């Protein structure tokens, strides 16, 4: 199971929001600034995730909380069969809580690349997605009056999944339009497409993210942030295994 999704979705957005004003300067420095600016930042969201595969289609409703880039909890509220299933991410570890058996199960390292909740998002997306600016070096690929296109190449020592990530940003609104992921052989593996850009508090964010695996054009996962609030009051002890079990 996996659940790294929301952070992964939020991060490129946040990253791009903060990067763009200083693109002409030093992208890596900007990303570090972004990281510092976001420490201690918190959010609460109601999210729906619609997963379509060759064999089934289902929509899940979830409630999620995050604190900084290291802490994250999400809990399924619909459908009834999976209600109460929750995921906790603390630093690089991911746990799932299963209400049916009242147990917490840690996702082992060997399954971090597996699908989260049957979606096209992996556990790694949550864990690795939250430190993209640490693991990758960035360069501006393309710039015109409409967009910026930024390429991320993993640092040699970084233990990452992707061989290359290409971010496309809306220049005027400073929001991401899409992210393309390539494997180590340079073959495109999947794409994220962002839409429904809206003003939330003092910033613009795309409320919808679509994950599309390249090798399965008929399959996709659509994540919609229905209700998102930033800068809520949360302590890191909220993101505990004990709290994960609470319904």
């Amino acid at each position, binding site marked *: 199971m996996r659940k790294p999704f929301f952070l992964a979705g939020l991060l490129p957005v946040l990253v791009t929001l903060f990067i763009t004003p200083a693109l002409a300067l030093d992208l890596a420095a900007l990303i570090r600034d972004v990281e510092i600016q976001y420490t201690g930042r918190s959010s609460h969201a109601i999210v729906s995730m619609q997963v379509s595969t060759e064999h089934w289609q289902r929509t899940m409703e979830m409630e999620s909380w995050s604190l900084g880039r290291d802490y994250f909890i999400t809990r399924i509220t619909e459908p009834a069969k999976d209600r109460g299933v929750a995921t906790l991410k603390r630093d690089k570890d991911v746990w799932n809580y299963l209400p049916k058996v009242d147990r917490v199960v840690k*996702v082992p390292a060997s399954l971090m690349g597996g699908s989260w909740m*049957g979606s096209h998002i992996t556990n790694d997306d949550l864990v690795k997605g939250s430190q993209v600016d640490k693991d990758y070096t960035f360069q501006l690929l393309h710039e015109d009056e409409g967009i910026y296109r930024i390429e991320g190449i993993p640092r040699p020592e970084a233990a990452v999944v992707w061989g290359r990530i290409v971010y496309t940003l809306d220049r005027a609104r400073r929001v991401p339009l899409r992210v393309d992921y390539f494997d180590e052989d340079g073959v495109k593996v999947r794409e994220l497409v962002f839409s429904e850009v809206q003003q939330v508090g003092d910033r613009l964010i795309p409320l919808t993210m679509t994950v599309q695996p390249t090798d399965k054009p008929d399959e996709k996962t659509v994540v919609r942030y229905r209700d998102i609030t930033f800068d809520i009051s949360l302590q890191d002890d909220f993101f505990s295994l004990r709290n994960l079990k609470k319904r």
Partner: protein
Amino acid sequence: MLVQLAFRNIWRNRRRTLLTLSALVISSSLLILSLGIFSGMMEDMLISATEQYYGHILLSSPGYQDDRDIYLNLPEDPALLKRLATQPHVQGISARLRSFGLLATGVKSYPVEMLGVEPTAESSVTHFSEKLVAGRFLHNDSAREVVIGSGLAAKLNVQPGEELVFVGQAADGSIANDLLQVAGVFNTGDSSHDNGLVITGLKWLQDILVLPGRIHEISLRIDQALLAPTIASTLPHMTSDGDPLEIFDWGKLLPEMQEAIASYDVSRVILACILYAAAGLGVLNTFFMSVLERTHEFGVLRAIGLRKRQLWQLLLLETLLLGLTALALGLLLGLFMTYLMCRFGWDLSSHMTAITYAGGTILPRLRAVFDLANFTVPAFFLLIICLAAGLLPARRASRLSPMDAIRNE
């Protein structure tokens, strides 16, 4: 007349003949015995490779065995199972469902392969129930019970009676999870199964995966594993509903095992050649000596009208007769020794442990099995060697001029 002559000739020097004969008899019977033991090891490996997991023949949806896609499943098809049961050679049938997921206890969790089976049917095909080191096998196919490998039990630190959590993904996309009790722990000697295979009830797995009435494969046990490709080709290629079936014999599922067995056929011939090379030189020596000694006699034979060709035939007949005698005695002795090794065997478990090779496990014991080729190959090569060893002396004798030969004392 020639045969009679040849027969008398070989018994003229009784001691020499008996010595040569005993060399041939001992080398051929030892060869038969060692081939029988080799066959026994191969059979142990084949049994461990097939009867510990796959079975001899597998029927599944086309493509299922390649990537084990949960959706490439089949209906539970009682009519098909009944039809398979009536096929000749088929001794056991087990319908199975498979899933990959996570088995966890406390903070430890490991990826596992769950194999859902009906316990009695599975025991008619594979031998997990005989490989238990703790606890018991499954009682029925719907209890929330598992039998796990010994390596996995050690990693999770669980004993029979303790609880585990299974987490996986159901066919409808939902999260499959349940609490399971460890019924037993098996140890097959195959580390990949001991570390990651979990046997559970078919009905329970169907429920948890939301695949009611579906299975992934039908595994068969047949009475002669080596005939699997032939028997597989006679089986029905469709379910009762007309869905196609892909049929694998163990050779396709375990290509390394098949290669190991093919290489055994070659090593059998090589072994025969090596053992017989020494015996063959003995025969060659015997006949050269006998030809040299009898030069005068050959001259007389030629002088009284025996043709070159007949002399040549006489000498070859002598070696052939010696060979046939050796063969008869060697086969008898070989059969007897193989029978003893077959019946009683030799337990080596105090000296060595089981070895896993090519997907099969070589057990720490010596035990022979009867395999016709283990007798025909040594027999064939024994005759070839005798004739080859007789050829040179025969040629030499037949080329002597009668005059020279008679003068030779």
